[in-house]
C-alpha cells in the first residue's frame, strides 16, 4: 500500500507540475483518493511559499565580512594549536619547571612525597590509557629536567622516543583505544599506510600531513589506536631532529655509565632502514674530538658537526602585540617599533584590510634561536571606525536634491533623519552639522538655510543667457522655478532685475523684466553720445532705477 502510495504521490506531483489539476490526478486513483488529496493540497501550499521569488539580498557582503573574520580567528587558533601541540599538562612540566630551580626542587620533592618511589616504579610498564601512565610521563619529564649534561640528555630523549614507539606497538597489539604520539623517521610511504620509526600507521582523509614530510623525515605523529589494533594517524608533522649526543669531548661520565650507549639517530637521507644505529663509546675525560663512533647498521655514520650539533628546538613562547605597521620589508616587517621576521610559514591575513605602512596589524610571533621575533601570523586589522564626530561648517548651497546636497564644496548625504530648516536655493548660505562616516563620507544631521536679508533691484544689459543663470550687467543672476520672467530674453536686451542678494555676490532673481528694444527713440538730449544703450535705456525707460545698480528695496 505504502509502496503504491509513494509512487502514485510522486506521479501526481509530477503531473501537477506539468499543468494537471489536483482533482484530475486524484480521480485517477479513487482507492487512494482519501489519502492522496490532502497530501497534494499540502504540496500546493508548500509550493506557494516557493513561488514568491526571494527579494534580492541587500547586504550579503556584511555576511561575507563576518564569515571572513571568523575564518581569520579560526586560522589563528588553528596555528596556535599546531604550535602548542596541545600537550597535556604533565608533558609541559619542563616548561613549568624551567622557570626556576626552586620550582624544580620543589616538584621533585613533591613527586617523591606524593607519588612515592613505588608508584613511579609500578607505572613503568603502563601504557597510554592506563591510570598510571601520567605518573610514568611525569617521572620521565623530571628525569629529563634533572639531566643537565647535554649528551646524556640527548641520549635520554632518544631513549624516550624509542619508548614511545614501543608503547605504540604495545597499544596496537593489545587493541586498546587510546590517543598517543611518538617521534621517528618515516620509513616508508605506501598509499595510506606508512611506517614511522618501525611503527606501522594508517592514514585517512582526515589525517593532516605537514609540509615537507618525505621518506626519511623525522616526524612527530599523533595517532589514535582503534579497537582492531590499527594506529590511525591524526597528524604528522616534521619535527626538529632531537639533539643527538655530542661526539666531541664531554665531561667524564658518572660511575656506572661506562657502558656503550645505543643511540637512535634520525637518518638524514631516505634509507631502507628506519634509523641508523650508532654505538658510541662513553666519552673519555680527554678532549679527543672524535670518539670513533662505529655504525652497526650503517657503514658511514659520519656524524658531521652540522648533524650532531643541531640544537634542541627552542620552546616556543607566543608573543602577541598589535600596532601600526612602520615598515614592510622583504623579510622583515616593523610593527609598533618591533622588528619581526616574515617567512614562508607566516600567515598574513589581509581579508579585512591590505597590508600597508600605517595600517594596524595584530601579530603572533615566536622567538628564534637568536632571540629575534618570527611572525607566525599577522592579521591586518581594518581601519578603526572613526567615531562620528559632529562636523559643522557654513557654505553656499551649490546644489540640492532629495538624497544629497553640495554645500561649500562638501557632498552631503541626506537621510530621512536630516533636519532641514528653511527653503534651500542654490547660492544661499547654509549652516551645516554633519557626521563623517568611516569611509569619509558626510551625512547631514542638520542644515539651516540662511535666507538672504537684502533685496536688490538693478538693470542692465543681458550679457549671458544660460539655463538657470544669466549675467546681467556683470552680475550673476540665478533663476529658479519661482523666478518670474517678463518679456523675451535676448543677449543685448535690457533687463530689470529684482531679487535677493546671495552670499556669493550673485542675485537670486524674483522677477526679471525684459525691456523691448527702443534704440530708435534715443535722443542725444537724454544721454551723452558715449553712453551705452543700456544706460540710455535706463535713463529713458526707468529713470528711477538708474541711481544705483544694486539698491536695497522694500517690497
Amino acid at each position: 500500500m505504502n509502496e503504491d502510495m509513494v509512487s502514485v504521490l510522486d506521479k501526481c506531483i509530477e503531473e501537477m507540475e506539468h499543468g494537471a489539476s489536483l482533482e484530475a490526478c486524484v480521480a485517477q486513483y479513487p482507492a487512494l483518493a482519501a489519502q492522496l488529496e490532502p497530501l497534494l493540497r499540502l504540496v500546493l501550499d508548500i509550493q506557494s511559499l516557493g513561488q514568491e521569488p526571494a527579494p534580492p539580498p541587500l547586504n550579503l557582503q556584511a555576511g561575507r565580512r563576518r564569515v571572513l573574520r571568523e575564518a581569520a580567528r579560526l586560522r589563528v587558533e588553528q596555528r596556535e594549536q599546531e604550535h602548542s601541540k596541545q600537550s597535556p599538562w604533565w608533558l609541559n612540566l619542563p616548561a613549568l619547571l624551567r622557570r626556576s630551580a626552586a620550582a624544580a626542587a620543589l616538584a621533585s620533592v613533591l613527586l617523591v612525597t606524593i607519588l612515592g618511589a613505588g608508584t613511579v616504579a609500578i607505572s613503568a610498564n603502563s601504557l597510554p590509557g592506563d591510570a598510571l601512565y601520567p605518573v610514568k610521563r611525569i617521572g620521565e619529564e623530571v628525569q629529563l629536567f634533572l639531566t643537565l649534561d647535554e649528551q646524556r640528555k640527548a641520549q635520554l630523549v632518544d631513549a624516550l622516543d624509542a619508548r614511545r614507539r614501543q608503547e605504540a606497538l604495545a597499544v596496537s597489539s593489545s587493541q586498546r583505544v587510546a590517543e598517543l604520539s611518538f617521534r621517528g623517521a618515516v620509513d616508508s610511504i605506501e598509499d595510506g599506510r606508512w611506517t614511522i620509526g618501525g611503527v606501522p600507521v594508517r592514514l585517512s582523509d582526515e589525517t593532516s600531513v605537514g609540509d615537507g614530510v618525505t621518506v626519511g623525515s623525522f616526524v612527530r605523529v599523533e595517532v589514535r589506536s582503534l579497537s582492531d589494533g590499527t594506529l590511525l594517524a591524526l597528524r604528522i608533522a616534521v619535527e626538529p631532529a632531537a639533539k643527538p649526543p655530542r661526539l666531541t669531548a664531554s665531561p667524564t661520565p658518572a660511575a656506572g655509565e661506562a657502558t656503550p650507549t645505543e643511540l637512535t639517530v634520525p637518518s638524514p637521507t631516505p634509507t631502507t632502514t628506519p634509523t641508523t644505529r650508532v654505538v658510541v663509546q662513553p666519552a673519555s675525560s680527554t678532549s679527543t674530538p672524535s670518539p670513533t663512533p662505529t655504525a652497526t647498521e650503517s657503514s658511514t655514520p659520519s656524524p658531521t658537526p652540522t648533524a650532531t650539533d643541531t640544537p634542541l628546538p627552542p620552546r616556543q613562547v607566543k608573543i602577541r602585540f598589535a600596532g601600526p605597521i612602520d615598515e614592510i620589508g622583504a623579510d622583515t616587517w616593523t610593527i609598533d617599533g618591533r622588528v619581526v621576521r616574515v617567512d614562508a610559514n607566516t600567515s598574513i591575513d589581509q581579508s579585512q584590510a591590505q597590508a600597508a605602512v600605517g595600517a594596524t596589524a595584530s601579530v603572533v610571533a615566536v622567538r628564534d634561536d637568536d632571540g629575534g621575533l618570527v611572525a607566525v601570523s599577522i592579521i591586518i586589522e581594518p581601519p578603526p571606525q572613526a567615531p562620528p564626530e559632529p562636523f559643522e561648517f557654513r557654505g553656499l548651497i551649490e546644489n540640492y536634491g532629495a538624497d544629497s546636497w553640495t554645500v561649500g564644496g562638501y557632498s552631503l548625504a541626506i537621510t530621512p533623519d536630516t533636519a532641514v530648516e528653511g527653503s534651500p536655493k542654490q547660492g544661499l548660505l547654509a549652516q551645516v552639522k554633519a557626521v563623517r562616516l568611516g569611509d569619509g563620507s558626510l551625512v547631514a544631521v542638520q542644515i539651516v538655510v540662511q535666507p538672504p536679508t537684502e533685496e536688490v533691484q538693478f538693470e542692465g544689459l543681458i550679457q549671458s543667457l544660460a539655463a538657470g543663470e544669466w549675467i546681467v550687467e556683470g552680475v550673476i543672476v540665478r533663476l529658479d522655478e519661482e523666478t518670474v520672467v517678463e518679456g523675451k530674453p535676448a543677449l543685448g536686451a535690457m533687463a530689470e532685475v529684482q531679487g535677493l542678494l546671495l552670499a556669493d555676490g550673485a542675485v537670486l532673481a524674483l522677477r526679471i523684466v525684459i525691456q523691448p528694444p527702443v534704440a530708435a527713440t534715443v535722443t542725444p538730449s537724454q544721454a551723452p553720445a558715449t553712453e551705452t544703450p543700456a544706460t540710455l535705456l535706463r535713463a529713458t525707460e526707468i529713470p528711477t532705477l538708474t541711481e544705483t545698480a544694486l539698491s536695497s528695496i522694500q517690497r
Partner: protein
Amino acid sequence: MQPDSESALLERARECDGAAIAELYDRYSLRIYNYVYHRVGNRNLAEDLTSTVFVRMLEAIRTSKAWRSSFSGWLYRIAHNVVVDHFRSGKQDRDLPLEDMTLPSSERPAESAERSITQERVRAAINELTETQGLVISLKFLQGMTNAEVASLMGKNEGAIKSLQFRGLAALRRVMDGEPL
C-alpha cells in the same frame, strides 16, 4: 564528486584559507540565501542566517567529512539545521523586522491574510520534520528541484527521495493537524 577546482578550494577552506572561503561564499551564498529566505520569509533574517550557515560550515568542514560527497548538499543540510535552530531558539518572534509586502492585485486582504497564516504554519511545520525529510520537502517544493537533483545533492537514489517525500508530506500533515508525529 567535486570538480577538481572545488575540491582544492574545499581543502584550502579546511585550513581556513581566507581567499578560498571568500570564493565559496561568493559561489554559494545566493543559493543558500534563497533557500533560507523561503524557509523564513524575511529578507533581513535570511541574510543573517545565511552568514550563520557559512560560519557553521567553517567549524564543521574541519571535523566532518560529509562534505566530500556533495558540498552543496552538505551546505543545504547546514542551512536546514540553522533555520530549525533559529525557530527552536524562539528568537523568531522578536527579531523579525517588518518588511514591505506587496499584495497580489487580484487578492483581497482577507485572502492574503489567510494565505499568510497558512504559509507560516507550513514553514513552522517543516521545522518539525527530520533533517532528511525537511530537506527533501524544502529542496523539492521550495527550491523547485527535481527528484534527480535532490538525490544528487543528498547522495541518495531517487527511490529514497520519493520515499522521503511521501513520509515527509505525511508527517507534515500530521504536524499541521496537531497530531503526534
